[in-house]
């Protein structure tokens, strides 16, 4: 109940924020939710189950291209396109999960990196898959409808943002529930000791594939809204580097915590845009220019600082400190001793 109220409150507040800003910022807001879905998929896969994946952007990309293809080629309702995108991404996720049955750690990271590279180079950018990618220009989505309503990209950006945000809140609550549930415990058991999990009756094959499938579906859900928000699909947002950025920012914000995904999504969408908009001018007579490149440098530096100062991620550590301070305030001497 508490979680549901929290999610509703978050939705109500976040839904109002982009109102009154220009189209660029509204686009950023919608993009932030899409990236947040990508990070959320890592919360499940890495934070809960302890599996490493460097191809989450590929799952989002498959979702995006499938949705784009469904709308442009078959003119279906956008809702149907989203469902198709999620199913396609989940299917790919299960396939990627197969090597994870045998591999772990650095080898799994390399394999998923290879998958990201293959999709980036030889699927999203290759002529052989033009039926899927819509050729060099990608799919243009102009006349999309959802629930029978017109959802044109630039004019109805807020509507798309609200749908995305609503879905994100629902999935986030479900993931928090999952953490505490029986399946969540089995996931965490795999993370802490695979050996013990197997001998204690947890079917590793089933739960690892389930985790990869669910994680890819979450990333794909976000990705399948990309054509709606941006008006078109291109390979660039889903290239290899985005996958790496997902991994870096998930760790930066706290890979075990659901709200950290929202934080990370906003960070990924807004900071580069703000930098390119206001990052140039003159300071004490010297012209300066802070471009997108500086964003990547900043992420790297922040990651190093975070690993030293906040090892459980920005969200995880701040949450712990806040709770610690809170419990000290509310402490009546000796009460907690009994707990021990």
């Amino acid at each position: 109940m508490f979680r549901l109220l929290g999610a509703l409150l978050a939705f109500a507040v976040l839904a109002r924020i982009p109102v009154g800003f220009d189209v660029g910022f509204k686009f950023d807001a919608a993009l932030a939710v899409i990236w947040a879905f990508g990070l959320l998929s890592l919360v499940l896969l890495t934070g809960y189950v302890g599996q490493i994946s460097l191809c989450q952007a590929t799952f989002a990309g498959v979702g995006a291209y499938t949705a784009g293809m469904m709308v442009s080629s078959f003119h279906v309702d956008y809702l149907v396109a989203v469902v198709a995108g999620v199913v396609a991404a989940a299917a790919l996720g299960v396939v990627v999960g197969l090597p994870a049955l045998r591999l772990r750690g650095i080898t799994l990271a390399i394999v998923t990196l290879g998958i990201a590279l293959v999709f980036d180079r030889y699927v999203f950018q290759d002529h052989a898959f033009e039926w899927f990618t819509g050729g060099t220009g990608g799919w243009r989505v102009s006349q999309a409808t959802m629930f029978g309503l017109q959802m044109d990209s630039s004019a109805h950006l807020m509507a798309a943002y609200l749908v995305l945000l609503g879905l994100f809140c629902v999935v986030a609550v479900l993931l928090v529930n999952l953490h505490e549930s029986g399946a969540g415990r089995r996931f965490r058991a795999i993370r802490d000791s695979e050996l013990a999990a197997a001998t204690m009756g947890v079917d590793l094959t089933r739960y690892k594939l389930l985790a990869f499938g669910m994680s890819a579906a979450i990333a794909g859900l976000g990705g399948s809204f990309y054509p709606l928000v941006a008006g078109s699909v291109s390979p660039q947002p889903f290239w290899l580097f985005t996958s790496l950025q997902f991994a870096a920012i998930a760790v930066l914000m706290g890979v075990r915590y659901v709200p950290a995904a929202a934080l990370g999504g906003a960070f990924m969408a807004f900071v580069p845009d703000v930098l390119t908009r206001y990052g140039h001018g003159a300071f004490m007579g010297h012209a300066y220019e802070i471009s997108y490149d500086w964003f990547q440098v900043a992420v790297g530096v922040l990651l190093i600082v975070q690993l030293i100062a906040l090892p459980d991620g920005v969200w995880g550590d701040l949450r712990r400190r806040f709770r610690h301070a809170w419990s000290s305030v509310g402490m009546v001497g000796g009460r907690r001793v009994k707990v021990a």
Partner: protein
Amino acid sequence: MTMLRVRDLTVRFGGIVALDGVSLDLNRGEILGLIGPNGAGKTTLFNCISGVIRPDHGSIYFEDQSLTYAPPHERARLGVARTFQNLQLWGSMTVEENLIVPMDALGRRNTFSDTLYLPFSGYAERASQERARAILHVLDLDRYARTAAGDLPAGIQRRVEIARALAMRPRLLLLDEPAAGLDAKETARLAGLLHAVRQRFHVSMLLVDHDMSLVMRVCDYVYVLDFGRMLAKGQPSEIRNNPKVIAAYLGEESKNQGGDIHAVAQARNEEPPLLEVKKLAAGYGGLEVIRDVDLEVWPGEVVACIGANGAGKTTTLRAISGMIHARAGHVMFAGQDVTGSTAEHISKLGLVHIPEGRGLFPTMSVEDTLRLVSNTAGQEVDVTPAFQLFPRLRERRRQLVGTLSGGEQQMVALARAILSRPRLVMIDEMSQGLAPTVVRQLFEIIRVFREQGIAVLLVEQFVESALDVADRAYVFEHGTIGLSGPAVELRGDRKLVAGSYLGSAVDATAIATNRNGNGHRPDPALMEIVSVRVPARVKRALELRAETEGRPAGAVVVELLEKVDHQ
């Protein structure tokens, strides 16, 4: 009647035959012991039964069903549960959650209904919690239910492992070295616990352990493995008197009379001590583990540190070698004050610390490990003296350290120590997890060290063997030194034997039955939890009180906790 039937099991790892046609029968309701020297194949047989590795040949039947090719989780559902020698609890989850995972695996729980919190999911959840609490109660673990398993000390974690295995409602429980790292008193309690578990949960057990006192006390029937073959089987009393078993496993009893006291006494008058520790105090986080430790080692002397688990022996070694900071007191080595110096600096002065677990690099070959010493020393050092001392290592020079048996790994650690030409070697729990014959060989090496003029400071659980080889010994009690003196004298001291749990089975049972006899011994588990949970204000008050009363903080905490519990 036969519950588990193993026939002709053969397992090969590359060229090594780990198991060679082993057969075994376990009857319903029986506690079966499986013993054997290190590398005899006990753990391999265990892993075959629980499905972690597959045999090359042979078959395993459980209740007339073939298990030979069933995956691990399938065996678990049929009723075969196991514990792990190197604890494999899910550290970030609470003890209660650790029990609920295997329970759920039995029932049909649905991921999607769980995630949506449908009513029947909540009902199943509460039922699981109730059952988990019941099991924890039987094993006297109630108070840890909400603690993260990884935060508990190893002794408690072993009990949680048993509780978790029981949560699967097993019919057969496989216990892999449940007494490893426990002292004699805890082992005696474990034996009682296992009997209680068999009655309450109606399980049969297969027990692998080095601790003969546990095996002899608990098991109905014992199998002995040696070099992958079944050497003998029979009642515990038969096994104890079987000459083949004694030769292979226990070796012959040593009657060494200890060091030459007079020689050492003479040396002591002529020279200043090599290592002199004064009023040393150290600890971790909010916990002071040792205080007022005074200790001296003269050149060429073998000194043993003995005492119960958690008495502060390991912490003392770590504080001396600079791995942790001393909070008070002084450490003098070779005439220099090294208090607060870095570990590298101290090791350059000629003090080598072989930590618990040996501190080796598993993916490096034996020879490379030894050559590494010469690299750190700055010039090429000849490694042949090490091979002369340990001919076995010469045969295995190209093998990776991680693939060696425990005893051979300890040899590598000792060989590496001697190559760096130390003046003092500190060895922490050299014999942990090793069979007695191997331990005896290692103690011979300690004598060689002494002959070469190298002083040795030993931390040991095999008290008898340690006192055999040592010149002098310090007995640790509750974080400080309770007794000290020449080893020969300490061996005859009955108070010592009773007071610090020296392992003869009779004394240990006597202590275990008198459960509150030693009521102020701080339970490390409690202290650890308290050190995490208690706010700083309370902690300061505790420390203050401990200081005014002149007792360790842990004792005060335990006393307070007992008061709180009564209310």
